[in-house]
């Protein structure tokens, strides 16, 4: 039976991991996401026998995830911006070795050690490949605590469907806020053995080798071609987005995660003034909904991208729109969150050319 509960984002995500039959969580404390590790340390092993391990660093964490994923089980970690930076080398290896796993970044303000307040400054790192080489993560951007829960399940499914690391790009406010969530039923831990996994070589099969090393450039290129082919398929099949009142809107706000909710509020304020504003929210940041935005740009007079960074997703929106309408940007940085009133002001200033 599913269950309704009032939960903090990070704890809801940890609860979701248990209910998804997660086999192992490796983590390292960092604000604002330490509750995930704490919650799992308290309940994880007790309830399902899953592995919960606090490692000595995020570098060790991501390599434990690599090892755990090699066994074909459901493995995950979570961290926040500086910690995720430390993991980038390992993520590149995992993507190249095509191992399924779930990564969560509860984004905080940066750059540098930054601040523990919410931000979206890791969009580029998550979406464009923060580590070395040509690889892609499927990036999910929840905007509610409910979606954080749902994305854990979806993330594990996509990870095994595509043999690819999945990242949930959340932020400090979603991690810390309490909301009502509907929790799904518990899925049993995984028992089936993946054919490619390292389990010990029986006499009946060839040995399994998992590597990201292909010293012969011809072979390395072939691996790249295979990966790119997979990414093209992901781009065809896995795009997700949500839109509110875009159908008869004159202008559209584009935002992901928590900011999209603030934009909805701003759109309501605008409606009170008689301005028709829609909100478009990419749910998958990779694959990005280029076509949907391109189509939308044919129907509206302009777009305003709102982010908690200096302007990252706006580049993808501009690529999608390709000059068909103007795409303006408003961002707050360093852990500051834009208010609906502030967004409305920007609509008036940047889209309408002055107060309505």
């Amino acid at each position, binding site marked *: 039976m599913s269950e309704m509960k009032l939960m903090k984002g990070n704890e809801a995500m940890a609860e979701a991991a248990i209910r998804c039959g997660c*086999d*192992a969580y*490796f983590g390292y404390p960092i604000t604002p996401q330490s509750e995930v590790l704490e919650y799992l340390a308290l309940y994880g092993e007790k309830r399902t026998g899953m*592995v919960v*391990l606090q*490692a*000595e*660093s995020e*570098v*060790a*964490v991501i*390599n*434990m*995830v*690599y*090892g*755990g*994923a*090699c*066994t074909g*089980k459901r*493995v995950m970690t979570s961290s926040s911006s500086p910690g995720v930076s430390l993991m980038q*080398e*390992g993520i590149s*290896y995992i993507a190249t*070795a095509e191992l399924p796993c779930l990564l969560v970044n509860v984004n905080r303000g940066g750059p540098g050690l930054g601040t523990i307040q919410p931000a979206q400054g890791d969009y580029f790192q998550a979406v464009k490949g923060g580590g070395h080489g040509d690889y892609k993560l499927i990036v999910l951007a929840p905007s509610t605590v409910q979606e954080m829960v749902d994305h854990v399940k979806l993330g594990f499914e996509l990870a095994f469907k595509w043999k690819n690391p999945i990242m949930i790009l959340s932020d400090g406010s979603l991690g810390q806020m309490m909301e009502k969530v509907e929790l799904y039923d518990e899925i049993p831990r995984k028992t089936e053995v993946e054919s490619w996994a*390292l*389990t*010990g*070589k*029986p*006499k009946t099969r060839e*040995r*399994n*080798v*998992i*590597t*990201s*090393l292909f010293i012969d450039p011809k072979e390395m290129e072939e691996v790249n071609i295979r990966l790119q082919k997979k990414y093209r398929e992901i781009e065809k099949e896995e795009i997700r987005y949500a839109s509110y009142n875009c159908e008869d809107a004159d202008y559209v706000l584009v935002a992901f995660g928590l900011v999209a909710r603030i934009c909805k509020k701003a759109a309501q304020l605008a409606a009170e003034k008689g301005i028709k504003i829609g909100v478009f929210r990419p749910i998958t940041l990779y694959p990005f909904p280029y076509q949907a935005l391109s189509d939308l740009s044919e129907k509206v007079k302009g777009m305003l991208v709102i982010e908690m960074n200096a302007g990252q997703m706006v580049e993808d929106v501009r690529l999608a729109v390709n000059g068909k309408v103007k795409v303006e940007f408003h961002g707050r940085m360093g852990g500051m969150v834009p208010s609906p009133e502030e967004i409305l002001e920007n609509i008036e200033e940047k889209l309408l050319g002055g107060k309505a």
Partner: protein
Amino acid sequence: MNEKRLITGDPADVLTDEAQIDAMIARESICNNENLIYERPETLTDAIFHYCPGCGHGVTHRLIAEVINELDIQSETIGIAPVGCAVFAYHYFNIDMTEAAHGRATAVATGIKRLLPDKYVFSYQGDGDLAAIGTGETIHTCNRGENILIVFVNNGIYGMTGGQMAPTTLIGMKSTTSPYGRDAATMGYPLRITEMIATLPATYYVTRQAVNTPANVRKAKKAFQKAFEYQKQKKGTCFIEIVSNCPSNWKMTPLQSNKWLEENMLTFYKLGDIKAPGKESAE
């Protein structure tokens, strides 16, 4: 000169008389299956080692493979290759294997072992991998007492990248990045990480071995046998250092390198068990 020679191992046994050799071959019938005493274990593939002639890696690989074969645990063993000369170890071991990022083999081993606690897991790492970039992972893996075997091949130099100074390079020893010899004043001291590991309460068996002589090879093999046995009994981390050579980057012939190893490496890196059941620990 087209002279047939048969060498049996004892210098006095060098035979040069053809009739005598033919007679001996007939007598020994080494080609007959029932007389076969030495063959490639099933746990090694037929890939040819890429290691330089005389390098200790080949013997060390062979010993591990023999032990896995003799214990009949091929189907239960998972290995982790490092970054370094042994990066391709998975070409040679006929077992399930992966290849870790530089220094992270024991973290990868931890991930595997925690999810498959009943399998045998070992990492195989060099001195740069284990005692420089991977020091943190090495120490914490041992401190958690992960029930795995860590194989540490120490030849005092970075082999694959072409002979740079390692954390274990001896004082005065020349490398491409210590061209005037390692100077403790600016480069620090050679790291006896194995002794450090032995002080950790969660390690169970910590030993230093070598493969430079047949007698040492036999002893090293015993150490591997023990380590897999202890892993079966879930005793905690086993750590085997193999003091090895690098003829290519030491710029010596294999024989010279073994002599140099004996005279220089083994006087600093002393062979024997540092921590073993029944032996008072280094604590």
